[in-house]
């Protein structure tokens, strides 16, 4: 059991095997005590390994095995039989990488190992199902299948406690984002970043203002209104805990914000791709809309990855990669990066203008760095590494060598990480365990959702449409 200090009824049984220290994590300890940094170590480690292998005339593609398109049962079973050693090696690789991190984070390794084995096997089956040539016809996109499967299983059955040790949604999605950086040229980030930031600023300020205003009109507490507002405007549940801590929000207010954000995020995973498909939006435009109007990174990647699967279908122009890239630029660079600034500003407002909660807080500009989503640094570095390696290659050589030997295997590993994440979201979700949200917070947040959805659509499909349509063009 976790041996952390506790008091006044806060003692909770956890399966933490190590005792966390009571003081806040120091800068150096944070490098091995936070998921963000572990996502960087793992993601960049894989990128560097891919580049070193390439520089020595090899490739990690043997290890980065993925299921291929199939139409008959015998084909997929033959694929697995032929590639069994590769799948086993990949499993060991992920197990070691995530297992070392889990151990460092204080997660019981005896639970993590069998739990991750289950996760890997189910993920493999879902990944393979998504590559069935009739999958698109039956809308069996892997993210949606993973979500539906997990939601049914976790809500109809009681999963063993040990299984939860490997259901680390954020860890997998952050690792996937770092790996994603390898497929996004630095020039694209420089070119698209400012537009994403402008669009995100418009949507974030408007959504926050709407939720905060409606919440106040409904008589809700200022701190609750702020936590709800940033949950809708910035990065969902992560924003709720960041701003909740910064303004000293009540625990119950953070809990109910998590519930409301979660419910809308899950709804949007299904609604946004299907709505965008019904409107025949190009993949880049749809990705930008999803990045503007989804509330959490993990949920947003599920929606963007789903839409990526629609690429090439009648009426859907653009590449699948463009949907994921546009989403990442909008959500991660446009919105997530600024959570520290939101937390700093709101903490100052809380201290200087809001009713006292009986607690004295200190705030300073270091708040921005302390809450900075560090994994984004890994995304930028991965992009810089591959851009540097690609420098000097002409486009034909780049496509012929670097893409199949470096970029494609890293994309395969990224898809694995994202699929672990999608399955973990749903297997972690027990609807009956969520805190009751209450009508007023739900109404306030829903008002923000309505404004966000409409404004996000207009910005993505009208104001900046020509810009987002250019994503995914074949330039190295």
């Amino acid at each position, binding site marked *: 059991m976790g041996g952390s200090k506790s008091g006044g009824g806060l003692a*909770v049984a956890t399966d933490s095997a190590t005792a966390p220290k009571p003081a806040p994590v120091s800068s150096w300890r944070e490098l091995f005590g936070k998921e963000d940094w572990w996502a960087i170590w793992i993601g960049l480690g894989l990128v560097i390994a891919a580049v070193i292998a390439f520089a020595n005339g090899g490739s990690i593609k043997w290890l980065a095995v993925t299921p291929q398109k199939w139409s008959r049962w015998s084909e997929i079973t033959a694929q697995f039989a032929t590639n069994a050693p590769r799948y086993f090696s990949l499993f060991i690789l992920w197990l070691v990488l995530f297992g070392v991190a889990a151990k460092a984070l204080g997660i019981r390794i005896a639970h993590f190992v069998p739990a991750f084995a289950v996760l890997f096997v189910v993920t493999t089956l879902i990944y393979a199902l998504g590559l069935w040539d009739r999958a698109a016809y039956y809308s069996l996109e892997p993210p949606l299948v993973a979500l539906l499967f997990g939601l049914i299983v976790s809500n109809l059955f009681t999963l063993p406690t040990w299984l939860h040790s490997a259901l680390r949604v954020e860890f997998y999605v952050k690792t996937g984002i770092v790996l994603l950086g390898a497929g996004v040229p630095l020039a694209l980030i420089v070119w698209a970043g400012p537009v994403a930031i402008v669009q995100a600023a418009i949507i974030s300020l408007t959504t926050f203002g709407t939720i905060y205003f409606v919440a106040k009109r409904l008589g809700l507490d200022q701190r609750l209104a702020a936590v709800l507002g940033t949950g809708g405007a910035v990065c969902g549940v992560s924003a709720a805990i960041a701003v909740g801590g910064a303004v000293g929000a009540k625990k119950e207010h953070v809990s109910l914000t998590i519930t409301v954000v979660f419910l809308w995020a899950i709804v949007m995973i299904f609604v946004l791709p299907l709505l965008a498909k019904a409107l025949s939006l190009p993949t880049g435009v749809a990705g930008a809309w999803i990045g503007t109007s989804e509330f959490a990174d993990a949920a947003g990647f599920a929606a963007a990855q789903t839409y990526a699967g629609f690429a090439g279908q009648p009426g859907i122009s653009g590449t699948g990669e463009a949907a994921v890239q546009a989403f990442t630029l909008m959500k991660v660079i446009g919105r997530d990066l600024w959570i520290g600034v939101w937390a700093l500003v709101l903490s100052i407002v809380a201290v200087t203008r809001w009713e006292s909660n009986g607690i004295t807080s200190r705030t300073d500009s270091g708040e921005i760095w302390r809450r900075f989503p560090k994994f984004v640094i890994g995304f930028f570095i991965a992009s810089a590494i591959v851009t540097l390696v690609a420098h000097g290659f002409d486009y034909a050589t780049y496509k012929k060598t670097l893409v199949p030997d470096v970029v494609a295997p890293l994309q395969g590993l990224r898809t694995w990480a994202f699929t672990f994440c999608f399955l973990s979201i749903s297997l972690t979700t027990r609807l009956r365990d969520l805190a009751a949200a209450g009508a007023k917070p739900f109404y306030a947040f829903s008002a923000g959702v309505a404004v966000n959805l409409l404004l996000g659509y207009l910005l993505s499909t009208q104001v900046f449409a020509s810009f987002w349509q250019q994503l995914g063009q074949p330039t190295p």
Partner: protein
Amino acid sequence: MNALEVRAQIRARDLRAAPACATCTFFSVDPLQIEAQLPGLNALSSGFASVRGGDGLCARHQRLLRATSFCANYSALPQFQRDA
């Protein structure tokens, strides 16, 4: 150094020396405990996320607070637990 700067320095020193949530009995920063106390947190985020900073849950006030906050109900942890 003028009088205002001296006052600011004294205040900053006092704040650093003051008892804070980080060393209070009621305060918990264990990520797994925080996830257990906030249902749904680990479904779309994490107790181990950088955005949480050093925040923790206060059992006295039932609030999510910064580790540098403090209040009149401060109850110091025994030294051995601080060093654990």
